[in-house]
């Protein structure tokens, strides 16, 4: 099953469960407090997912490691390499 298919299946199952419960299609009588929570749940989950995504990406950007040392090391190695290669007869 492709990832897309997995997502569609998951959404279909959750969606139909939610629809069934909120429209009372299964003939279940849920207490009012449950119904009040259930009804806006998809919107609430969507907003939560959005917040999670923003927070996660924000955190990862903030902690993205800057390799200053690597850049410096590379620079000095480039000098060393050019000198050695010229010594071995490379015409740049």
């Amino acid at each position, binding site marked *: 099953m*492709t*990832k*897309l298919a997995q997502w569609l299946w998951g959404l279909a199952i959750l969606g139909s469960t939610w629809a069934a419960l909120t429209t009372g299609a299964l003939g279940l009588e849920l207490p009012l407090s449950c119904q009040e929570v259930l009804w806006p749940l998809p919107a609430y989950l969507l907003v939560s997912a959005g917040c999670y*995504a923003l927070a*996660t*990406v924000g955190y*990862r*950007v903030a902690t*993205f*490691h*800057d*390799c*200053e040392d*690597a*850049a410096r090391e*590379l620079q000095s*190695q*480039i000098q060393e*390499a*050019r000198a*050695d*290669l010229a010594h*071995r*007869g*490379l*015409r*740049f």
Partner: protein
Amino acid sequence: MASLEVRRSPPRSRRQLEVRSPRRDKYSVLLPTYNERENLPLIVWLLVKSFSESGINYEIIIIDDGSPDGTRDVAEQLEKIYGSDRILLKPREKKLGLGTAYIHGMKHATGNYVIIMDADLSHHPKFIPEFIRKQKEGNFDIVSGTRYKGNGGVYGWDLKRKIISRGANFLTQILLRPGASDLTGSFRLYRKEVLEKLMEKCVSKGYVFQMEMIVRARQLNYTIGEVPISFVDRVYGESKLGGNEIVSFLKGLFTLFATT
């Protein structure tokens, strides 16, 4: 003339050699190049240094796609300096793309492991012995360098670039759940037969090609290890990540999402 290689340990006696495995591992580095006249000698020098210091058996296969800046000429000089058993030149007439460059290079690779990397010095050969160590440690089919985990990182990226990179990676992780933290990275070690198998199956181009390799590898139940690497981007200033690239990345991502 053969290269001057420094072996860390003194030559072993014949008897000891026969007790070890009869066939040493050999690592073939595939270096597709296009207009890398400046960088090619440097990357080769760094590769030779890393391999020699670690006593690793290697070859470097340079696949130049008819670069107009004289890259091929520099490659020929390097072959003379380091020997044609270490530097193999397999050029092509014109720019034909990365995937086909790998296929072309692999046909001539005599190693049992293949390393792919960029020739523009963004990937540092000093990580290759770590890749090899990691591969042995977990008997992995693939070892991938990651910029996003451990003390992996990047130099030369501004805030915008970092946001795009992390955002794209986040989306990729959510949609594809690939089991590897850096999907668009192209600094990897493969068992040769694994890379051959994957090249047969992959069809995309550019960033997406590298992503597809990992996704297909997972489908085929290959094991993937990761090593944090530092990515020193010296070209970002000249070639900014434009809207076009982002759009084609998204198209490729959604294609993989819908087809794998």
